[in-house]
């Protein structure tokens, strides 16, 4: 807790500090987050610290120490479009699709294989309802109609001449993390459990410019959005949100959208759940009330114990996850580790992330890596000295709206164990004395 930081500073001034081990900030070996900050070397004698990192179970020994062969021969030629190293072939999206309708399913972002906050375009999670359409940017059009003064169509060529804005935002499927509703904790890599969320820089035309051009009627408080895919996925979104910060995105991390992320254009609604951010967008209809499509009634609604269901949930509730270490990784031995993870909230910025290494008895605030942006992944880091004994690691976000990530018990009490969507409870990893890591409730 903050007390620990104060304690550490005092010790530093006295010159009595010689090891990070001297500055625990919470139980279970959590250390002062300022270990990571510039100038903290003096604080903790960081130069002498022996940092460890978790390893995957199948990690191989290093090659003998001699001049690498790559220094003895010319390398490969240039490439028109770079690909990941062949050695990174295992860094993939995990596909889980319907057996009969193979275009209906999901693929998970391998969060456990990634660092930082930006999801590479080829690894952005997918949720398709009936495959990825092959759309020709020369013939694709966007229609804006309904309760507007001037129904309009836009070609991509026309849209490319409009003023654009970019937004670094996460997109999370409302069904992400839903194995958390299972009665038993799922044992899998963190990306295959929580990887229906990704974060990218999206660039495009502010929706308000296009809607203003069409002249939206004052009583049109909803906007029906529809994709040009083989499920014609459609959803009603609040006009206010579309006008406030909706983007008709054309670029993803600097390049044109990937086909599986909506090429040539998609909606981006910062902080809203993925289903609302219609890919392959081809129609926007201004309406006075929701159309009550299948995906806003039968799906993405939360059944409660009394039989009623929550509808039009939209805003992603705060969530955080420890990604290093996480199940599948092993701690090679006692020592100093960096706990690292992601936090995000559809209500805005991450205000703080706390970490516990003793099963929730004590917590300490993690370092948040700048920049901390609204509706964007925030990476948190925390130094931890593992003593080789069993431990339980967990993280807890508080967002700028003051909303705290609930425990699983609290979430289930508030909702229902029969729910399917919108799971954002605290996630716990147990560390065994052999360094193996498991998911626990």
């Amino acid at each position, binding site marked *: 807790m903050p007390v620990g930081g104060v304690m550490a500073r005092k010790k530093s001034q006295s010159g009595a500090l010689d090891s990070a081990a001297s500055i625990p900030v919470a139980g279970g070996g959590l250390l002062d987050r300022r270990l990571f900050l510039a100038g903290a070397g003096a604080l903790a004698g960081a130069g002498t610290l022996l940092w460890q990192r978790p390893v995957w179970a199948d990690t191989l020994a290093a090659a003998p120490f001699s001049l690498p062969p790559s220094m003895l021969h010319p390398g490969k030629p240039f490439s028109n479009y770079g690909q990941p190293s062949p050695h990174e072939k295992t860094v993939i999206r995990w596909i889980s699709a319907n057996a009969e309708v193979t275009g209906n399913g999901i693929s998970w972002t391998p969060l456990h294989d990634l660092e930082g906050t930006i999801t590479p375009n080829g690894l952005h999670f997918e949720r398709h309802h009936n495959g990825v359409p092959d759309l020709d940017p020369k013939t694709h059009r966007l229609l804006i109609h309904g309760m507007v003064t001037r129904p309009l169509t836009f070609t991509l060529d026309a849209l490319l001449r409009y003023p654009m804005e970019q937004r670094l935002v996460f997109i999370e499927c409302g069904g992400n993390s839903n194995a958390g509703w299972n009665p038993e904790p799922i044992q899998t890599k963190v990306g295959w459990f929580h990887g229906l969320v990704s974060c990218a820089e999206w660039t495009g035309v502010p929706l308000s410019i296009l809607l203003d051009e069409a002249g939206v009627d004052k009583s049109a408080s909803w906007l029906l959005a529809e994709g040009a895919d083989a*499920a014609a996925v459609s959803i009603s979104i609040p006009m206010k949100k579309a006008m406030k910060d909706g983007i008709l995105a054309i670029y993803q991390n600097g390049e044109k959208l990937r086909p599986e992320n909506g090429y040539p254009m998609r909606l981006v609604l910062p902080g809203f759940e993925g289903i609302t951010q219609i890919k392959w967008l081809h129609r926007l209809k201004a309406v006075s009330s929701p*159309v009550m499509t299948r995906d806003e009634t*039968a799906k993405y609604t939360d059944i409660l114990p009394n039989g009623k269901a929550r509808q039009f949930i939209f805003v992603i509730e705060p969530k955080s996850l420890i990604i290093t270490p996480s199940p599948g990784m092993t701690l090679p031995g006692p020592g100093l580790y960096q706990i690292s993870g992601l936090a995000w909230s559809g209500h805005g910025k991450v205000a703080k992330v706390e970490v516990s290494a003793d099963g929730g008895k004590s917590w300490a605030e993690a370092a948040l890596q700048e920049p901390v942006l609204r509706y964007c992944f925030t990476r948190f880091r925390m130094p931890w000295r593992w003593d080789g004994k069993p431990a339980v690691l967990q993280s807890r976000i508080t967002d700028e709206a003051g909303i705290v990530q609930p425990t699983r018990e609290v979430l289930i009490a508030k909702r229902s164990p029969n729910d399917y969507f919108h799971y954002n409870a605290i996630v716990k990893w147990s560390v065994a004395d052999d360094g193996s890591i498991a998911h626990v409730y």
Partner: protein
Amino acid sequence: MSTRAKSMRAKFIGAMTIGVFVAAFCVASHAGPVHEGPKLGKPATPEEIAGWDISIPPDGSGLPKGSGDAKAGAAVYATKCATCHGAKGEGASAEELVGGKGSLATDNPTLTVGSYWPYATTLFDYIRRAMPADAPFSLSADDVYAVSAYLLYLNGIVGESDVIDAKTLPKIQMPNRNGFIEIYRP
């Protein structure tokens, strides 16, 4: 365009004409994001809109001509739907569509068209746009009405010979019509 934006544009043009590019840039940079496009939208004709507007809201506006009943729907269902949704809508590789009546407030809620869907119009809207998955938009309006009627019949909501069309479909009171609580507050 807002008065402020007009004033900004006027300043911008004025500065450009006297060649004070630096000053112009400074003015523009304080105006914030530009909130006006080049207005390149092309007017959409009623025919163009009619061809694309496939959304059916609860009041049923936009429902096409045609009709069907559960008897006709059973035949459509058997050839187009049963492989994935089961012979009687009990579910197979795709989800169940029938049953779950009275289950929502129990420990094992079963969410189906009959137990959960609040509006019958959603059936027409969704089946036409998305089903069957291997050939969306391949069913005629009569077929979509008929298969909607069949699913409503299997769920005990309409009779086997009730004719479902643009007039009758929106009038159907679904059992869970009032089962939803709207969460979003703008």
